[in-house]
């Protein structure tokens, strides 16, 4: 089966520094693929390049058979490749429902020609309501995003990416800074996505990674040193040395 996302020799250089070094990786349809690695390994940079926030220096990314390497970010999102951010990035003056409705808007088209007031669009807000439910924010739809608790903000962060109608989600450390209870809610959300969507997950929480992932890749100094099932990665000598630390070996 052809992979949903094929990454071929993708590199990103900043001057003399190679942050992502000829990464090749196939992500299958429906797979939850985790990307782990020590700080500074280039995980977030890879997300930036795949999502279109940064241009690639070389190599290419093929999403669903289409070379998206040079597409602008919004075009990638429209084709079904969306990301979330490590540092929460919402619309603080919009309510939760308005945030989600906004993310639903581009796929409806007619951005430049529709003259009907958005507020009267009942289908749009019904969809947003469903999205809020799925994201676990049904009770907070009328709250301004800027007034949400940290954990809820992290949920909405992913909710926005989901609302774009993405088929592949690039999640950049969704659990960053969450307490145990909040982590649990987010874990449930991620669990509910499994199978329905394809996910590339960058995450430092190893419990979550090993519970969720179908396959795991380990990035060290911009290179993939190992890809495999959670069991294989757990046992991989190079991963243990480079990432889990010498003492664990």
């Amino acid at each position, binding site marked *: 089966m052809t992979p949903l996302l094929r990454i071929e020799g993708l590199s990103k250089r900043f001057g003399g520094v190679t942050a992502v070094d000829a990464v090749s990786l196939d992500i299958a349809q429906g797979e939850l693929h985790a990307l782990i690695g020590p700080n500074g390994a280039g995980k977030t940079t890879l997300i930036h390049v795949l999502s279109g926030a940064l241009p690639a220096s070389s190599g290419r990314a093929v999403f669903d058979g289409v070379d998206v390497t040079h597409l602008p970010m919004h075009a990638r999102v429209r084709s079904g490749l969306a990301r979330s951010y490590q540092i929460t990035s919402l*619309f603080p*003056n919009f309510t939760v*429902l308005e945030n989600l409705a906004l993310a639903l808007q581009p796929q409806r088209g007619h951005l430049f020609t529709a003259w009907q007031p958005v507020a009267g669009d009942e289908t749009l807000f019904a969809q947003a309501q469903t999205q809020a439910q799925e994201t676990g924010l049904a009770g907070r739809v009328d709250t301004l995003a800027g007034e949400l608790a940290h954990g809820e903000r992290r949920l909405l962060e992913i909710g926005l990416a989901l609302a774009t109608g993405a088929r592949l989600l690039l999640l950049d450390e969704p659990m960053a800074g969450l307490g145990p209870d909040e982590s649990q809610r987010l874990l449930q959300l991620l669990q509910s996505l499994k199978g329905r969507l394809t996910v590339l997950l960058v995450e430092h929480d190893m419990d979550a990674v090993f519970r969720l992932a179908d396959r795991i890749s380990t990035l060290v100094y911009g290179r993939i040193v190992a890809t495999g099932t959670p069991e294989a990665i757990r046992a991989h000598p190079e991963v243990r040395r480079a990432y889990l630390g010498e003492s664990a070996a």
Partner: protein
Amino acid sequence: MRDTLTIRFRPVVALGGLVLLLALPLGLIALDQPFYVVLATRILIYALIASSLNLLIGYGGMVSFGHAAFVGAGAYAVAVLVRGGVTSAWLVWTAAMLAGGLLSLLIGAVSLRTRGVYFIMITLAFAQMAYYLVLSLKGLGSDDGLNLPRRPTLGLGLNPRHDLTFYYAVLALFAVSLLGMWRLLNAPLGRALQGIRDNEARMEAIGFPVYRLKLAAFVVAGALAGLGGGLLATLNGLVSPSLLHWTQSGTLMIMVILGGAGQFFGGVAGAVALLLIEEVAAEHTIHWPLGVGVAILAVVLFAPSGLAGLWRRARFSRGGA
């Protein structure tokens, strides 16, 4: 459902305002102050221009420091056409809109690649280029500007030289333009614009073509500013390069900030306040800009949503909602 984004008019306020504006010149004439009809016309035109700038600054987060260029484009388009023998006001005003829209398309296409301070500087630079271009073109009258030999006609048997008739024509265009901006801001494009103002990077990441959306808003604002310029040219019967000078862009920006950036009637409130202060204070002292400076300081410090924001706040605290 809580709705924080839709801009609503209370029908009473909107209709009341319109009735007031309809009756105003009749009152002024009854009080034997016909000169003030011309002042009221000028204020309406500036209210339209400042509102178009508010669309960019207040709703799109695009702090454009070159709005005078579009006003100038519209004004000179009208002057050139009237001198060339075109007599229909509706035709020359449409041309003014096109001129403002076209120039804003060109300037916006380049400027909108930049953000923040760079955007402010590059729009200023383009406007100054337009200023010096007009200044150096003999065909446009250089620093003397151009006079309009006659006022373009409104048709329908209306006398264009009649100040009252002209006031009502301007009022109609003002009302239609504001209604259009209101529709636009509540439509998907307007909502997207407010999203861009609040978080541009995320808008791109949820699939909005941010650059094209900003350019569309920039062109709409430029076209309306061009219309305003065309009306000014018609009102004054002459155009001069000073219309394009950067201090004009600054004055328009002051109107928006004073009136309330991101408040629907911010541009209107600012234009009314600034031009009335100028009218009243200039009679008493040449130092009147000092008073304007103090007023702006007060607004920025104590009422960041401007005069229009104060009015809203008063209304809401009274209504308890």
